[in-house]
Every structure is written in structure tokens, then in C-alpha cells.
């Protein structure tokens, strides 16, 4: 995908792309059990490729989820605030430099570009991440947790640096596998967002999947024929046996079926296109959990950030009952798929603080809402209610 964007931005292309891209590399070595030496080696390889490409690049370690703010889970307004001036200045500077470099020099790396790496993660953070992933009992839950944390991290990087879109390189084959896996995991309500072309749950940042029409085989051949440099990093399920997780099982199932019936992946892909329209409505109606009575103002937030888990900070909040189960407060904020995953997490303590804090906040709001309901302004109200300041 990166190579295709590079091609699309080159002056030789017939329809030149008109956006300014950056690249994010998420270092997940700690979650996958890589040694620090291997991680450093992979990172060095990644930096070489990133420097060759010439776009602004950002390297983030998965450990940084422990310093994410709770706002990453909230559906923000469309326009990212506070970064407009810096973003425009960066774009102007980039375009001016493009012009100054002249023909055929587009891929030269520009030293003024923000190429950020926030420093290597601390040993404490790495240990916390390892503890989190080691405490998860099944590989399925680990993979789901990893995907969720990665999404939140990339979202945060995008918001911080003023990116309005995130392009993921998921191929048709990968999305077909993801679709079937989501169904098996009870995430059918979110099929449209998880496997569709665009995912607008996060508000200001839209996740798009421009490679969803290319099969894995096409991508492999493209990479081979055009000598695209690639880096292989072991994942959480590398070398895992076929039945180690639902993801692996589904991957084996789809690939084996594809070998016998070559139209398998394209048929599942077509089904995902139908899911775009069909499941979006279903998701909105099913997002209202029985415990949350009136629709809250940020109604889309529970679905958008479905993996918001939190422990009840019962000792900090005077409104919460002392004998309430903190885990229950967390679980009630989750969608069905995440609740099933949480069963494989014996304790919520290792979870990153932003998740716990946000869940506590939402739980408290949900409890307080009925008490102040009559004083709240509805969106469709034209006049203020009496008694409102």
C-alpha cells in the first residue's frame, strides 16, 4: 500500500493523489514476546524503509498505550482542534519543499519533517505490557486485545499529528478472514465498520482500507515483481498451531477453501459489501445496553469504543455503592464481543489506565444521568427548560 501511495504521488502518475501522507509504524514486539535485541533490529530495518520512502514517519511502541488519555475512546468532533495551524504550516512547508526539490526528486526525505519517536519505552511500561498479555488466557483474546490497543494507539497518533484519515493495508483475503472471525466472536454488529471501506466511528479520524479489493496473492506478486522492500515481524500467532485461536482456525479454513474453490474470498468480500448497509442499522439499535436506560448524549460512543473497559473506582467515587462489583461496572460498558474476551482476562488491573478511567467516568455518568435528566437540554429542544441556569 505504501508503495502504491508513493507511485500515486509521483509526478509521473496520470491521476496524481492529492493528499500528504505520513507513516506510522507500531512496534508490538513486547506483546509478541520479542527480545529487545530483535525489536531493535526490526526497528532499524523499518527505519531504513521509512527513510527511503520519504514521507513523515512516526514510530510508536505499543507500550505507549499506558500513557494514552481517556479522550482517545471518545468520538471527537469532525475537525481536529488545536492542530489546524500546525497542520497547515506543515503541509505548506511540505508542498514548498516538493516544488523546490524539482522534478524527479519527490522521494527525497526532508529533514524538517516531523519524524517522531517518543523515546524508547521504559522498562516499567514494557513489563506492564508483558504482564497484561501474559495474564490473558487464550490466544484469541490476546489477538483481539492487541488489535484494539493498536487501533487506539494509531488513532491517538493520527489525532495528535492532525491526520484526518488512517489507511490500513488489509487485503481482501485478510478482510474475508476478519469478517468470518468477527462473526464467530460475536462482533457481527460491527461488521460494516470492521471490514468495510471506511470506519467513521471515531469522528474526526476516518479509517479507510484502500487495499480491500486486492487479494493477498496479488499483493505478494506485486511486492515481488516491483521489488517492494518488506519487513517481516513475528506476530502474536506466528507459528501457532492451527487450532490455537479462532483467528488461526478461520484463516486456515478460508485459505483451504480458497484452494479448492477460488471464488471463496471474493464471495465473502461481496457479503461484506452487503454488510455495509445491513449491519449499520442493527449496530445502532443493539448498542443500547439494557443497563443504560435513557440514550446518553454520546450515544455512538459505546459502539465506537467498544473495548472501553474499566474498573470501578469505588473507593474514589462517593456515588458508587461500596459492595458493587468493580468488574461488573467495566463489563457493562462493553459490547458482546468484548465481554466474551474479558472472560479470558482474570483481572482487569493490568489494563491500561485510560481504559479504566474512561469506564469509570461513563459508569458514573450513567448513574448520575437519571437524577439530572429533567434538567438536561435535549438536542431538539428550542427553548431552555425552566429552572436551568
Amino acid at each position, binding site marked *: *500500500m*505504501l508503495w502504491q*501511495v508513493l507511485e500515486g504521488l509521483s509526478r509521473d502518475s496520470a491521476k496524481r493523489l492529492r*493528499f*500528504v*501522507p*505520513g*507513516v*506510522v*509504524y*507500531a512496534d*508490538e514486539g513486547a506483546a509478541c514476546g520479542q527480545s529487545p535485541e530483535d525489536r531493535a533490529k526490526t526497528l532499524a530495518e523499518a527505519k531504513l*524503509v521509512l527513510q527511503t520512502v520519504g*514521507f513523515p514517519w512516526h514510530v510508536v511502541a505499543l507500550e505507549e498505550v499506558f500513557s494514552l488519555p481517556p479522550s482517545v475512546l471518545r468520538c471527537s468532533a469532525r475537525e481536529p482542534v488545536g492542530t489546524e495551524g500546525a497542520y497547515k504550516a506543515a503541509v505548506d512547508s511540505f508542498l514548498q519543499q516538493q516544488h523546490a526539490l524539482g522534478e524527479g526528486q519527490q522521494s527525497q526525505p526532508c529533514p524538517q519533517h516531523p519524524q517522531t519517536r517518543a523515546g524508547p519505552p521504559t522498562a516499567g511500561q514494557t513489563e506492564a505490557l508483558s504482564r497484561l498479555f501474559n495474564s490473558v488466557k487464550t490466544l484469541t483474546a490476546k489477538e483481539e486485545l492487541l488489535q484494539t490497543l493498536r487501533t487506539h494507539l*494509531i488513532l491517538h497518533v*493520527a489525532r495528535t*499529528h*492532525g*491526520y*484526518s*484519515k*488512517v*489507511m*490500513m*493495508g488489509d*487485503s481482501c483475503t*485478510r478482510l474475508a478472514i476478519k469478517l468470518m472471525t468477527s462473526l464467530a466472536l460475536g462482533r457481527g454488529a460491527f461488521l460494516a465498520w470492521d471490514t468495510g471501506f471506511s470506519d467513521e466511528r471515531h469522528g474526526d*479520524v476516518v479509517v479507510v482500507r484502500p487495499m480491500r479489493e486486492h487479494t*493477498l*496473492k496479488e*499483493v*505478494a*506478486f506485486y*511486492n*515481488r*515483481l516491483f521489488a517492494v522492500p*518488506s*519487513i*517481516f*515481524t*513475528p*506476530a502474536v500467532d*506466528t*507459528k501457532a*498451531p*492451527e487450532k490455537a485461536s479462532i483467528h488461526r482456525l478461520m*484463516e*486456515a479454513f478460508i*485459505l*483451504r477453501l*480458497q*484452494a479448492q474453490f477460488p471464488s471463496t474470498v471474493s464471495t465473502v468480500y461481496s457479503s461484506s459489501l452487503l454488510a455495509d448497509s445491513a449491519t449499520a442499522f442493527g449496530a445502532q439499535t443493539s448498542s443500547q445496553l439494557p443497563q443504560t436506560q435513557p440514550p446518553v448524549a454520546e450515544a455512538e460512543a459505546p459502539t465506537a469504543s467498544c473495548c472501553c473497559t474499566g474498573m470501578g473506582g469505588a473507593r474514589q467515587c462517593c456515588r458508587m455503592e461500596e459492595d458493587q462489583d468493580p468488574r461488573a461496572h467495566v463489563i457493562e460498558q462493553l459490547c458482546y464481543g468484548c465481554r466474551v474476551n474479558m472472560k479470558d482476562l482474570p483481572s482487569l488491573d493490568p489494563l491500561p489506565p485510560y481504559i479504566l478511567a474512561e469506564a469509570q467516568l461513563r459508569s458514573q455518568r450513567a448513574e448520575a444521568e437519571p437524577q439530572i435528566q429533567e434538567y438536561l437540554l435535549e438536542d431538539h429542544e428550542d427553548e431552555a427548560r425552566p429552572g436551568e441556569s
Partner: protein
Amino acid sequence: MAAPLSVEVEFGGGAELLFDGVKKHQVTLPGQEEPWDIRNLLVWIKKNLLKERPELFIQGDSVRPGILVLINDADWELLEAGWGQAAPGRQDGSPLLPPSLLEVLGPQCLQQLALGK
């Protein structure tokens, strides 16, 4: 009787993990009674190059689904004729040139990078 054959075998996309991380192997296949074809070569690779987890590489007499095999940059699935036999449609019946490069690509061949703006 097939003469000894020199082949370069390259592993990518994660497949190299099963071969001690070594991506390129220059191998010389010994002479044998039957002519060399891909299936024989895969069995030979399994016996002589594969270091661990054969079930992740071979399934039956072929590679596991998801693994791509390229012979001289051509997809194995498209090469209907065996290696060393006359290709269909060839008028003179001349055999295919022995492949000089065999590539095996694992299914994990996408970079983990995302773009924005």
C-alpha cells in the same frame, strides 16, 4: 534419469522462520531416476532444508494453503505442465527450461504500516 540440478530457493513473507531465518538457499539437487518436479522438490526441501514445524509448510504432497510458490517469477498454479515436460501449446514439444529460481512466500507478506492525512 535426471541430471543433478542447481536451483536457488528463496523464502519470504515469514516462511523463512521455518528455515532458521535464512531466506536464500543455493541448492544442488542430486541426480535421480525420476525427473525433478515441484512436488519432488518440496519433499526434498522438507527433508533437507526445513528445520521445524513441517505441518506449517507442507500439507499432503503440496504446500499448505496460503503459501505461494513462484517458479521463475511465475505462479506455480498457472504452470499446468510439470517441470521438465512439454508445456501445453508448445509446438515443438521442447521441455521447459529448468527453473533457476524457486520462491516460497508465506501468507504474512504485508507490511504493518498505516498512512494518514
